[in-house]
């Protein structure tokens, strides 16, 4: 057992003040008292346990199905473990556009907690929903989110993870996209000694769109891994991967991103960029960008860079009176901007930016 201290500071949790539906989990267990009343939401939303005990056919059919499908060609053992042993989670079915974001809040109170969470989300034809996640969740968290986005549906996901520095997390998103559907996921990670975020997406309907982005700030003992596998199995789909990491004091960032274009997936538009800003000589960025293409009429581009802060830009800012530390923060935020800009909603984007600048201010060397 590796304990993780609960982090105390007076910083306001993310998404505070936002009109949202709150669902609270404490050390991986749903806390009804701290959450909004599920019955009054007007949504089909249940705790995993309750849903599995009832005859909710769609949920039973979906649970573990996308995860199992995502085990090939690359095995994801922690996800398999999750499906077998998940203790809690939500089951959500959306049949119309939902205005209020559904906010999953993961509190961590027990320094030695383990949590296995599994969410199942189905966005029906023409429906749309925004799911927010934040909080350290537990000392060790294993999480799976299966998302089925039907034809013409839209799923937006914004996540703020980290906070309790000693916490370890392995998370997975498995998504299946129908015709003309949209999937957008953004993750901000600050702190956390070990984080692995896997995202496995299958574009199965024509004209679908999948965007996955992440911005990570790591200082010291920090290992952050983004593993993305996007399969194009339909015509005229678009996918984007935008991952940015700022690393210092020996922090490590990993990116493994793949675009697989299946035979017949013509007119695919795939884009992938992974970049790190290394603030010192001790930090590492390990990148493995991959393209595997079996169709002949596609546009796929990828890039991966590691670099230091732009000294010219730093001097330019300082010559205008901006102090060194502020100038550096400004350039770090500018570096992360391409990833943060992937968040469509302006208010959510502002929440994330505030978190990032707050972290930078607290972590000045």
């Amino acid at each position, binding site marked *: 057992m590796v304990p993780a201290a609960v982090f105390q500071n007076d910083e306001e949790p993310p998404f505070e003040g936002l009109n949202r539906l709150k669902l609270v989990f404490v050390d991986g267990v749903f806390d009804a008292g701290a959450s909004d009343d599920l019955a009054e939401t007007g949504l089909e939303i249940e705790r995993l346990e309750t849903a599995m005990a009832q005859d909710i056919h769609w949920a039973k059919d979906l649970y573990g199905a996308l995860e199992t499908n995502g085990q090939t060609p690359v095995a994801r053992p922690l996800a398999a473990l999750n499906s077998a042993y998940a203790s809690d989670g939500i089951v959500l079915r959306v049949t119309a556009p939902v205005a209020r974001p559904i906010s999953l809040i993961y509190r961590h109170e027990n320094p030695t907690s383990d949590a296995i969470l599994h969410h199942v989300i189905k966005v029906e034809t023409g429906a749309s929903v925004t799911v927010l996640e934040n909080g350290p969740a537990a000392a060790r968290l294993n999480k799976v989110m299966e998302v089925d986005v039907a034809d013409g549906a839209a799923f937006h996901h914004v996540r703020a993870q980290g906070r309790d520095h000693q916490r370890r997390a392995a998370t997975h998103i498995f998504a299946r996209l129908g015709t003309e559907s949209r999937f957008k996921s953004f993750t901000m990670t600050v702190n956390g000694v070990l984080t692995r975020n896997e995202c496995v997406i299958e574009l199965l309907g024509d004209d679908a769109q999948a965007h996955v982005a992440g911005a990570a700030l790591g200082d010291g003992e920090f290992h952050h891994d983004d593993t993305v596998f996007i399969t194009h199995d339909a015509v005229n789909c678009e996918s984007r991967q935008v991952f940015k990491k700022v690393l210092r004091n020996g922090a490590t960032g990993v990116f493994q991103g793949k675009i697989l274009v299946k035979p017949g997936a013509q007119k695919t538009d795939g884009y992938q960029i992974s970049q790190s800003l290394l603030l010192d000589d001790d930090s590492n960025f390990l990148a493995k960008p991959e393209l595997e293409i079996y169709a002949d009429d596609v546009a796929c581009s990828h890039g991966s860079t590691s670099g230091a802060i*732009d*000294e*010219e*830009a730093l*001097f*330019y*800012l*300082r*010559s*205008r*009176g*901006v*102090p*060194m530390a*502020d*100038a550096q923060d*400004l*350039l770090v*935020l*500018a*570096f*992360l*901007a*391409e990833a943060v800009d992937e968040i469509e909603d302006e208010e959510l984007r502002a929440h994330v930016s505030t978190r990032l600048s707050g972290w930078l201010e607290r972590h000045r060397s």
Partner: protein
Amino acid sequence: MLEIKNLHVKLEEEDKQILKGVNLTVEAGKVHAIMGPNGSGKSTLSYVLSGRDGYEVTEGSAHLDGEDLLEMEAEERAAAGLFLAFQYPVEIPGVGNMTFLRTAVNAQRKARGQEEMSATEFLKVVREKAKTLKIDADMLKRPVNVGFSGGEKKRNEILQMAMLEPKMCILDETDSGLDVDAMKLVSEGVNALRDAGRGFLVITHYQRLLDHIKPDVVHIMANGRIVKTGGPELALEVENNGYADILGEAV
């Protein structure tokens, strides 16, 4: 205002002396121009004064209103009232021009113990000044200098100068890359800032900029030293005869 005495500067990385005893005093309210051939040390002088890394002062001094510039960080020099309009303004992707301007203005105010400018007040002032430089709303919104034309970059430098209201302005080849119209616009921006309390040091290769920004004093720099000082007529002499005559004479 600006007092440079016997300034010797070498490159930090290699043993190469670039400035070899520069003496120069710019009084408040005056415009001094420095002309000189390539490699004479003009740009180095501007960089050393503004606090860029990579140079080592081996001898001499530089003071702004009695304050020792060489002891200060770049940002402190800016707060003390020194401004360098860059020959090659830097592009900063991801940082909005407006954010950049406001951060700079408020950082300097803070350093001087003044109250920060409110967002509305700032917006009002910046729009006013941008208008006279023909900088549109789009240029203010875009990332700093990214995708700007040569002329737009230089106009943006002058806008920064107008917003920061420095005591001492150094213009490093502000005319390079400008067409006639842009040069006129930039010069008008500079002239609008001429003031009894403000000094200017205009570095240029060519006399044509000095047709628009009329200098009080013209210096010729060569081989790391100021070799000749005179009135505006000296710039015309360079324009007509080139540097060779003057340099031959000086040596």
